[in-house]
C-alpha cells in the first residue's frame, strides 16, 4: 500500500479544520466538561444536603421504652457532621463540622407517641421492646423515610449505645462506646514502600485519578472514532466519494481521515486536561497527587493503538452502512466495549491483579481503558510484561483492523442500497 503523504496531509488538514470549525464541536468541547462538572457538583451537594436534612428533620425523638433500660437516658442527642471532603481543600486540615441537636421526649405508650407523630409534634418514634437486651430489636416510626441517608438511624444508634452503658461507666467511656472511631487515620503502603496517609480526600483522589485517566483515554479514542464514522457516512450519503476517489486512493483517504480526526480527539482531551489542570491544579498539588511521566507515555501508546483499532473499525462501519443512523447502530457495540471496564471500576481498582482485571487489560477492545485503570489504581504494581503483552496484542489487532477496514472501505465506498451481510464483509476484508 503506497501512500502519497501530501494527499494524506491534505485530507487530514481538511478533516481537522472542518471538524473544529463547527459550532457543534465547540459546544462539545466546552459543554461536555461543563455538564460533567455541573452533574458532579449537584450530585455531591445533594448527598451532603440529604445527610443534614435527615438530622434537621429529627428535631424531636419520641421514645417508648418498655425495657426500662433508658429511664435515665440523656434527654438530648448531639450529632456532629463533618463536611464532605473536596479536592479543593488541603488533606490534613480538618473539615468544618456542623452540629445538630435532637430532643428526646419519653412517651408512656405507643399510641400517645403515634398521635404526637401524626400531629407533627415529634419527628420520629422509637419503640424499645421489653426483650431489647436479648434480641436487639427496636422499632422506629417516622413521618417519612429518607432514601439517601441513614444519618438519623446512626444518631439513634449512638444514643442507644451511649445510654446503655452510661449508668455503669463514666460519661467519657460511654461517649467512646457510642462513637468508637471519631478519628480513624489509616496509613497504607504506597508504591515506593512508604506509608501514606489515607484520609477521605486522599481516597477520593485515588478513585478519581484512575477514573479520569481511563475516562479521558476512552473518550479521546471514541471522539475521533465517532467523527470518523460521521465523516465517512456523510461523504457516502452525499455521494462525494466517487469524485474524490478519482484523485486520492481509498487508502490515502482513510489514512488522512484517521490522522486528522485522531488529532481532533487528542486535541479535545488536551484542552480538557489543560483547563482542568488550571482549574484544579493547586488542589491536586496539595493532595500530593502526581502523574508519573511513564503513565503519560503508556497512555499515549494506548491512545495511538486504541484509536487505530477503533478508528479503523468505525471507518469500515461508515463505509458499509448507508447513512449515519445505520452506522451508529453498529458502532454502539464497539463504544460499549471501550467503556465497559468503567462499569467494573470498583472491581478493577479494588483488585487490579485479579484475573478479570488482567484479562480485560489484555483483550484488545477493552485493553486501553482497563490497563490505565490498573496502572493508576492505588497500591497497584502492574508487571511490565503485562503492559508489553497488552500493547503488542492491541497493536496486532489494530494492524488487522486497519488492513481489513482499508479493503472493506475500498470496496464498499461506492456501494449504495443494501447493507452487506457479514460473510460479504469478511470476503471483502480477505481480498487483496
Amino acid at each position, binding site marked *: 500500500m503506497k501512500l502519497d503523504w501530501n494527499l494524506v496531509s491534505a485530507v487530514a488538514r481538511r478533516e481537522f479544520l472542518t471538524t473544529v470549525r463547527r459550532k457543534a464541536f465547540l459546544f462539545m468541547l466546552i459543554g461536555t466538561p461543563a455538564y460533567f462538572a455541573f452533574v458532579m457538583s449537584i450530585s455531591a451537594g445533594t448527598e451532603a444536603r440529604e445527610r443534614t436534612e435527615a438530622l434537621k428533620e429529627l428535631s424531636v425523638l419520641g421514645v417508648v421504652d418498655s425495657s426500662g433500660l433508658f429511664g435515665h437516658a440523656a434527654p438530648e442527642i448531639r450529632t456532629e457532621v463533618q463536611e464532605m471532603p473536596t479536592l479543593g481543600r488541603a488533606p490534613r486540615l480538618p473539615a468544618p463540622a456542623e452540629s445538630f441537636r435532637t430532643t428526646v421526649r419519653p412517651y408512656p405508650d405507643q399510641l400517645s407517641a403515634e398521635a404526637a407523630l401524626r400531629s407533627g409534634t415529634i419527628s420520629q418514634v422509637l419503640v424499645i421492646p421489653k426483650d431489647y437486651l436479648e434480641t436487639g430489636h427496636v422499632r422506629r416510626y417516622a413521618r417519612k423515610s429518607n432514601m439517601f441517608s441513614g444519618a438519623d438511624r446512626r444518631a439513634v444508634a449512638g444514643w442507644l449505645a451511649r445510654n446503655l452503658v452510661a449508668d455503669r461507666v463514666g460519661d467519657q467511656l460511654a461517649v467512646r462506646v457510642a462513637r468508637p472511631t471519631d478519628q480513624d487515620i489509616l496509613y497504607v503502603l504506597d508504591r515506593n514502600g512508604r506509608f501514606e496517609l489515607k484520609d477521605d480526600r486522599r481516597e477520593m483522589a485515588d478513585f478519581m485519578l484512575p477514573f479520569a485517566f481511563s475516562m479521558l483515554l476512552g473518550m479521546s479514542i471514541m471522539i475521533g472514532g465517532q467523527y470518523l464514522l460521521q465523516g465517512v457516512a456523510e461523504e457516502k450519503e452525499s455521494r462525494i466519494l*466517487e469524485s474524490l476517489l*478519482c484523485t486520492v486512493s481509498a487508502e490515502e483517504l482513510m489514512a488522512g481521515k484517521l490522522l486528522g480526526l485522531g488529532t481532533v480527539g487528542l486535541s479535545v482531551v488536551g484542552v480538557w486536561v489543560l483547563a482542568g489542570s488550571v482549574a484544579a491544579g493547586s488542589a491536586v498539588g496539595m493532595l500530593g497527587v502526581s502523574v508519573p511521566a511513564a503513565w503519560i507515555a503508556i497512555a499515549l501508546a494506548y491512545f495511538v493503538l486504541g484509536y487505530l483499532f477503533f478508528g479503523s473499525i468505525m471507518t469500515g462501519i461508515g463505509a458499509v452502512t448507508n447513512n449515519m443512523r445505520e452506522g451508529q447502530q453498529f458502532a454502539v457495540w464497539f463504544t460499549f466495549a471501550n467503556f465497559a471496564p468503567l462499569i467494573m471500576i470498583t472491581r478493577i481498582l479494588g483488585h487490579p491483579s485479579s484475573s478479570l482485571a488482567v484479562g480485560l487489560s489484555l483483550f484488545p477492545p477493552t485493553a486501553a481503558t482497563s490497563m490505565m485503570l490498573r496502572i493508576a489504581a492505588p497500591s497497584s504494581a502492574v508487571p511490565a510484561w503485562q503492559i508489553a503483552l497488552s500493547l503488542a496484542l492491541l497493536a496486532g489487532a489494530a494492524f488487522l483492523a486497519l488492513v481489513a477496514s482499508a479493503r472493506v472501505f475500498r470496496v464498499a465506498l461506492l456501494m449504495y442500497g443494501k447493507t452487506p451481510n457479514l460473510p460479504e464483509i469478511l470476503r471483502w476484508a480477505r481480498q487483496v
Partner: protein
Amino acid sequence: MWPRFRRGARVLEVRDVTKRYDGRAVVNRVSFEVRPGEVFALLGPNGAGKTTLIRMITDILRPDSGTIHLDGQPIDQAKRTIAYLPEERGLYRRSRVIDVLSYYGRLKGMSTRNALEASFGLLKRVELAEWSAKQVQALSKGMQQKLQLCTTLIGSPRLLILDEPFTGLDPLNVQLFEEILHERRASGTTVLLSTHQMSKVEEVCDRALMVNRGHMVLYGPVQEIRRHYADHAVLVRTERVPQGVPGVRAVERFNHEWKLTLEPAASPESVLRSLLERGVGIESFALATLPLEDIFVKVVREGLGLDHGVSGPPTVDELPVVGAAAR
C-alpha cells in the same frame, strides 16, 4: 471550429479490459483509445457497463484483466491528471464554497495558495465569485452543479471525464458548460463524455464508443458512424424532382426536402450529376443519415439480439468498427 486531434497520438489507451462481478462480466474485453484534444463519447444503455468502465479508467476499480494507460503510463501512476464528474455527485454541504473548491485543488497537488487563486478564478468564470464565502447548502441546484464542474476543472486536468454533465441544467447553464468545454478543449484538454443526450454527442463529439451488456458494439468517428448507418438515399432541397433520374429507385417528400432512395449500384455523386444535367436547381444535397439516437436504438436492439434472435452481443472481432481512423 474546434481543432482536430493529431492522428495516431493517444491520451488514453484501454486494451482488452474485463471486469467481472460474481462471475458475470460487466465489462468484457473492451478496447479503445482517446486522442489528444478530442471530445470522445462513451455511449450505452443503462447497465451497459459505462460506469464500471469509467471507474476503471479513473483507477477507482481495478480491471480483472487488460491494461489502461494514460499518456503511456499505467493508470495508477497517472491518475492525478484525470478529473471526473460522476453522474451521481455531491458536495460537502456544510462547508464554504471556496473551501470545497480549494480542497479539490489541494488533492490535485496544488499548494494552498495556488489552489485558492485557481478557485477564485474558476468561481469568477462560472459567476459564483460572490458566493465563495457561503456554505454550499445555500446554493441553488444549478449553482451546485456549476461548483461541481469547477471541482473537476481545478488543477487543469489532462483528461476530463464527464458523466451526464448537462442533466438538470437550464439552457443558459448548458450554454455556459459548453463554452467552458470549448475553452478547455482549445487549451488541449481531452474530454470523455458519457451522456444519453444524443443531440449533444452529434454536436460536440469527434468519436464515440458504444457499449452494451459490457461489450463494445460501435466504435469510430461520429460522422462516420452516421454515414455507415445512413439509408442508401439522399436529401435534396429543390423545387421539383423530375421523373426517371438514373439510379433513383423512389422519390418521396421529406419535410421541406425530397428523399431520393437510390438503386443499390448507384452512387450519390452520379445522382447529383444526373440532376444537374437535367437543369434541376439544387439548394442543398446531403446523404440521408439517421439521427444518432435512432442508430443507438437500432444498434442496441440488434446487439442485444432482440430483433434477430441473436444469442448475445457481438465479440470484439465482429464489431462494426467504422472509418479507417478507428483502427
